[in-house]
C-alpha cells in the first residue's frame, strides 16, 4: 500500500483523464487536460490523450479557423489510439491537403455517448461556433447508450463527489478497488465461458434490430438534423458496419429515407467492402476483423481501422463538395 501510495503521488506517475459532472449528460470529459485511460477491462493503459478547452480531443482551434464537428462515442474519441491516429485527426490532415488550407476536425466523441448525448453536445457547440460540416458517427452499439434518467444523473453527481473526497485521503486504494472489480468481471467472463459482451450481440446485425434502434433514437437524430439546418451546416451521418450486415443496410436506408429529401443531410455507410473483409463466412470475417482492425487488449478500433474510416469519410466529403472552403468562422458572430 505504501509503495502504491508513494508512486501515485509522484509527479511522473501516469495521469488519468478525468470527467466533470454534467447536469444533463451525467458526466463529460474535463476540458484542457491530458492523460490516459484504462482499456480492455484495465488490462492496459491507453496512449496519452489531449483535450482542448471544450473537452474535445484536438488541439486548441485558432480564432477564425475552419472546423468540422465530429460527434460519437468512444470510437470517435479514439479509445486506445494516439491523438494523431484518431480518424478525426486524419480527416483534418486529409481535408486540409485537399482544400489547400487548414481545417480542424473537432473531436466531440466521448465514451458511452449515444445519439441523445451527441444531440446535446451539438446543441451546445452550435451555440458558440459554426462548423462547415457536422459528422455524427452511428453504429448499432449506440443503442446501449441512452439518455440518463434523473436518478442516474444524481448518482453520477454523488459518485463524483465521493471519489473526490476519497482521493484527498488515498490515491492507491481507488485504483486497487477498480482493479479488483475488473478482475471480478474477468472471473465472471471465465465462468460464463466468453461472458457477455453487453455492447455487441447478434441483434446488432439484424434488420429488426436496426429498425428498433432507429425508431427509438429518431427524436435525437431529428434534433440534430434540425439544429444543423438552422445553423446552415451540412450534416453527415456515418454508419460504421465492418461486418456488412443487414443492420447496416437497414440503417442507411432509414436515414436516407428520412433525411435526404430536402436540406443538406447526407448518409454514408462504411461496410465490409471498405474494410476489405470480403464476402467470406461470417465467422471468418469476424475473426479477420478482430485481428486486423481492433486493439490487442480491447475490441475498440485500432489505428488501422481509424485510417479506413478517415479515408472513406474524406473521399465522400471531397466527392460531394462538403466542407469545400466556404467562408466560416470558428466562433459565431454576435
Amino acid at each position, binding site marked *: 500500500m505504501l509503495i502504491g501510495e508513494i508512486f501515485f503521488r509522484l509527479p511522473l506517475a501516469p495521469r488519468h483523464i478525468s470527467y466533470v459532472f454534467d447536469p444533463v449528460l451525467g458526466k463529460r470529459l474535463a476540458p484542457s487536460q491530458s492523460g490516459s485511460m484504462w482499456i480492455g477491462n484495465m488490462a492496459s493503459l491507453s496512449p496519452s490523450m489531449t483535450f482542448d478547452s471544450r473537452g474535445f480531443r484536438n488541439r486548441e482551434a485558432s480564432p477564425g479557423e475552419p472546423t468540422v464537428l465530429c460527434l460519437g462515442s468512444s470510437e470517435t474519441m479514439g479509445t486506445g489510439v494516439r491523438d494523431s491516429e484518431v480518424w478525426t485527426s486524419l480527416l483534418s490532415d486529409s481535408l486540409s491537403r485537399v482544400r489547400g488550407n487548414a481545417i480542424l476536425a473537432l473531436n466531440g466523441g466521448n465514451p458511452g455517448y449515444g445519439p441523445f448525448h451527441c444531440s446535446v453536445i451539438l446543441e451546445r457547440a452550435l451555440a458558440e461556433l459554426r462548423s462547415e460540416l457536422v459528422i455524427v458517427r452511428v453504429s448499432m452499439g449506440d443503442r446501449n447508450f441512452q439518455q440518463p434518467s434523473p436518478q442516474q444523473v444524481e448518482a453520477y453527481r454523488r459518485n463524483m463527489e465521493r471519489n473526490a473526497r476519497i482521493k484527498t485521503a488515498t490515491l492507491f486504494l481507488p485504483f486497487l478497488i477498480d482493479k479488483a472489480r475488473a478482475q471480478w468481471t474477468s472471473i465472471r467472463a*471465465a465462468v460464463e465461458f466468453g461472458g457477455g459482451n453487453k455492447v455487441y450481440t447478434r441483434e446488432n446485425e439484424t434488420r429488426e434490430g436496426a429498425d428498433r434502434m432507429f425508431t427509438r433514437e429518431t427524436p435525437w437524430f431529428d434534433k440534430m438534423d434540425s439544429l444543423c439546418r438552422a445553423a446552415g451546416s451540412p450534416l453527415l451521418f456515418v454508419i460504421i458496419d465492418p461486418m456488412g450486415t443487414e443492420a447496416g443496410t437497414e440503417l442507411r436506408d432509414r436515414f436516407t429515407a428520412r433525411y435526404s429529401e430536402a436540406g443538406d443531410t447526407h448518409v454514408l455507410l462504411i461496410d465490409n467492402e471498405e474494410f476489405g473483409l470480403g464476402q467470406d463466412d461470417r465467422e471468418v470475417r469476424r475473426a479477420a476483423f478482430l485481428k486486423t482492425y481492433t486493439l490487442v487488449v480491447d475490441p475498440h478500433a485500432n489505428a488501422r481501422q481509424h485510417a479506413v474510416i478517415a479515408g472513406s469519410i474524406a473521399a465522400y466529403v471531397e466527392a460531394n463538395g462538403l466542407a469545400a472552403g466556404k467562408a466560416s468562422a470558428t466562433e459565431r458572430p454576435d
Partner: protein
Amino acid sequence: MLFNSWRFVLFFAAILGVYWLLDRKKQNVLLVLASYFFYSAWDWRFTGLLLATTVVGFACGRRIHQANGEGGRRFWLILCVVYNLGTLAVFKYFGFFAENLIALLARLGLEVDPVILKIILPVGISFYNFHVLSYAIDLYRREIEPTPRFLDFALFVSFFPLLVAGPIERAMHLLPQIVAPRKLNGLMARQGLWLLFWGLWKKVFVAENLSPYVDQAFANSAALSLPELYLAAVAFAFQIYCDFSGYTDLARGSAKLMGFDLLNNFNLPYFAANPSEFWKRWHISLSSWLRDYLYISLGGNRRGKANTYRNLFLTMVIGGLWHGAAWNFVIWGAYHGLILIVHHAWSAATSIRMPKWLAIALMAQFTLVGWILFRANRTVTEGHRQVDDSLRQMGELFGAFGRGFAPGTGLLEHAPSILLIIAPLLAIQIVKYLWNDQFWIFRLHWAYSACIQAFLAFLLVRFGVQAGDSFIYFQF
C-alpha cells in the same frame, strides 16, 4: 486456456482441490482427464491426434521391449519415429516444403500448380511428439523400462502443465514421478507458489509491456535506424525470454503444487560466456534432447573434427527448423551452428581466455544478432496463401547497417520506457547469477523478501498487461 488467465486459475484450483484427496492411481486418472480437457480448450479437433500419438507411442514402446533381436527392436523404433516425424511433417512442414519445391521448380522453368492445403498447426505438437520419441529411443537404448499402464504413459505425454509449450520432459525423469506416490511439503508449496508468481510477473509485466514496442519495430523493418534495430533486438531478447521462461515457471510451479518436479528449462541464458554455454542455459530441455537424440545419433564428436562440426551444424539447423517452417528459423539455427563451430575451433586452437564479464557481454551481442534473425518471421498474403517473407524482412532489418543513424521510426523515444521495464528483471537476474540460486528470494531475511515481493506485486498490479493472446512458443 492461457496460464495467465482466470479461466486457468479456476480450472487449476478445481483440479488441485480434488487432487490431494485422491490416491495416486485416481490422481493420474484425474490428471489425464484434466489434461485432455485443457488441450481441448485450445482446439478439441486435435485431441484425437494427441490420443493417436499416445496409443502409437505406447504400443511401439511395448513392441520395442518385447521384440526378439535387434532387427525387431529397430523396426518398432523406426515405426514410432516415422509416425511422429510424419505427423510433424504433415502438420508443420508440408506447406513450407511444398512452397519451396514449387519455387525451385519454377526457377528451373517447370511451372507446377500450387497445392494449397489449409493445414492448421495443432498446438503443442512439437512438444508431445518429442516426449514420445524420447520414450521410444530410451527404450531402444535400454536406458528405461516400459511403463506397464497405458494411463501412466498417457499422462506422461499429455500432462497439462507442459503439454503446449514444454519443457520437453524425459521419460526417465517424469515417468518415475508418475508411477510413484506424490507428496507436498511446505518447501515445495512455497517454491511452487514463488514459481507461479515469478512466471506470471515475467509474462504479464515484462513480456507483455515490451510486446508493443517489438511489434512496432518489426512492423517497420525497412525504416529502422541502426540504434533502433539494436534497441528492438534488446527488447525482443527480453520479451521472448520472459514470455517463454515465464510460461515454464508457471508450468513448473503448477506441477510442483501437485508434487511433480519438472526440468528447469532456463538458467540465466544471457549470462552465458560462449555459444556452448548459451545452449546449456536456454531452452535446456530442447538443446539436451537434440544433443542426446540427434547429435549423438549422428556420431557426436567421436569421428574427428570435420564430422563433429558437421553434426553440430546439422543439429542446430534442425533445431532451428523445429521452431517453425520458415527460412528465418533455419537461418537462425544455422547461425547458432556456425558460432558454435567457431567457438569449438577457437577453444581448441588457442588458450587465450577473455575476462568473464567481457565474454558475457560479447556473447550477448551474438545472441542479439540471432534474435533479429529469429524475429524476422513475416508472412505476406498472396491470393489465399500466407507466403514466407522472412528473407526479405531480414534484408530490410540488416539494411539498418546502411541506414546508420538516419532518422528512424521514433522507437528511440521509448528507450527509457523499455529500459525501465527491463531494469527490475535485470537486477534480480544479477542477484540470481551471483548467488547461483533460482530460489534466491528464500535466502533473504523475511522483511527484505516481503519488501521485494511487495514491489514486484505492485509492478504487476499497476503495470501488468493482462490480455496477451498467446505465449510466443505456443506457435512451435
